[in-house]
């Protein structure tokens, strides 16, 4: 149980930070697309008898980087490239599942998450990835923020914008596959997007917005895990519903005029 909470908190922080950059780059659904492509990777792992998360990491990150390359090279819009990535992952997964004659229960835990069953090794992996990614973001904070704000101006300031973009895609890939254990493939973009759009509405500066988003994210994950533990239901749904609750509450406060309008 406390393993679930510790990993949950780490994932909450990670998703809200990476998600903030994705949302601001108008790339909100990118997490979703990576998650869907990891479905293909998971199916591949199950078929080959390899631990499915490893194949998921490989397939998701590789396909995310490839689609980014294609998008830049051929000037395809962000949303279209997301659609390509998203559907091809599912398609590959379905074909593999079909070829293997269908899987048992295993695939279910990847679709909806299984944080309550997280092992010691998983927890260590989650914590070290979270630590590593946060260190990278802190070290490159200005470069990442500036190239998210405006690519051209960042370039003129000498920031290697393209490399930073690939780095973000790479970190998003790691984050998504790591987080699959918490909410599963289907609801991943909820963790990336909802706490951030909620936090942005508070009208604060960048760091405060990131902190508000992290707090909301941690709150939903911790309370969600506790509720699902008590009522013995899958945590993914409760976590996402809680963060939607915070979102709705914020809209309520805002329309009541208690927050400045933008």
């Amino acid at each position, binding site marked *: 149980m406390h393993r679930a909470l510790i990993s949950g908190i780490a994932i909450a922080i990670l998703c809200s930070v990476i998600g903030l950059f994705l949302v*601001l780059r*108008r790339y909100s659904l990118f997490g979703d697309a990576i998650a869907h492509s990891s479905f293909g990777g998971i199916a591949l792992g199950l078929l080959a008898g390899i631990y499915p998360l490893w194949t998921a990491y490989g397939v998701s990150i590789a396909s995310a980087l490839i689609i980014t390359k294609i998008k830049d090279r051929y000037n395809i819009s962000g949303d279209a490239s997301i659609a390509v990535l998203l559907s091809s992952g599912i398609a590959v997964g379905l074909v593999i599942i079909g070829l293997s004659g269908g899987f048992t229960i295993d695939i279910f835990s990847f679709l909806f998450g299984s944080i309550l069953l997280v092992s010691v090794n998983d927890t260590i992996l989650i914590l070290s990835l979270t630590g590593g990614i946060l260190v990278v973001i802190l070290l490159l904070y*200005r470069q990442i*923020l*500036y190239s998210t*704000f*405006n690519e*051209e*101006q*960042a*370039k*003129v*300031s*000498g920031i290697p914008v393209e490399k930073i973009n690939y780095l973000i895609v790479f970190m998003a890939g790691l984050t998504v596959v790591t987080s699959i254990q918490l909410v599963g493939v289907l609801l991943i973009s909820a963790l990336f997007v909802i706490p951030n759009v909620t*936090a*942005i509405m508070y*009208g*604060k*500066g*960048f*760091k*405060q*917005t990131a902190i508000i988003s992290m707090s909301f994210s941690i709150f939903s994950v911790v309370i969600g895990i506790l509720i699902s533990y008590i009522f013995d239901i899958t945590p993914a749904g409760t976590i996402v519903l809680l963060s939607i609750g915070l979102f709705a509450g914020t809209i309520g406060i805002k329309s009541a005029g208690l927050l400045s309008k*933008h």
Partner: protein
Amino acid sequence: MLIVEIENLTVQYPDVKALDDVSFRVDQGDFLGIIGPNGAGKSTLFDSMLGLNTKYTGTIKFFGEDIRKSKNYLKEIGYVPQKPIFEKNFPATVSDVVRMGLKNESDESKINEILQQLWIHELRNRRIGELSGGQLQRVFIAKALVNNPKILILDEPVTGIDQQSIELFYSILRELNSKQKITIIWSSHDLDAVNQLANHVACLNRTLFFHGESAKFFSNDELIKQYSEASMQEHMHHH
């Protein structure tokens, strides 16, 4: 000291030749006004100088070094784009945006100093998306200046800004050039303003029509007449 040398710069887009064999130089301390009608190639010239457009022929040198060889010169440049594009609800305050321009993050005091100099200190905690055009422009100038650049490049930065803010902006530019010795390259449609502020003028309309001291340009009625006619033609051509 020679800061910029542009030789035989030609930019061919798929449909138009935006710049045709343009050559000129900029010295340390110059205040160069680049004038030219819409579509004259001013932004294209800046994009090429800043490394945003690499599909050009000819050479561009900063501090004697070809910009194709080294990007080091960018450290010395502050750039204010024609249209600062950003996500309207981007969660950044005025100080957040100015801080992005700051390469050495420990220089926090520099941010306050520059905000004060540009009369936007009281806006420092406001979200960037809430500002008026004139305020926004000063924020972007602050961002361009916070790193102590040797050269300031401004692309037509007064469109849609009220007269009072324009006056303030011009006095800030004049001070930066005369007191802080920053070399300024500035594109504008406003001939009067260029006459008042700039000490050098480049008239651009695909080709370089005139380049030299502004006094020479503005005392030569024939040149001004030719320039206005060329601009008029360009204008009619577009409508």
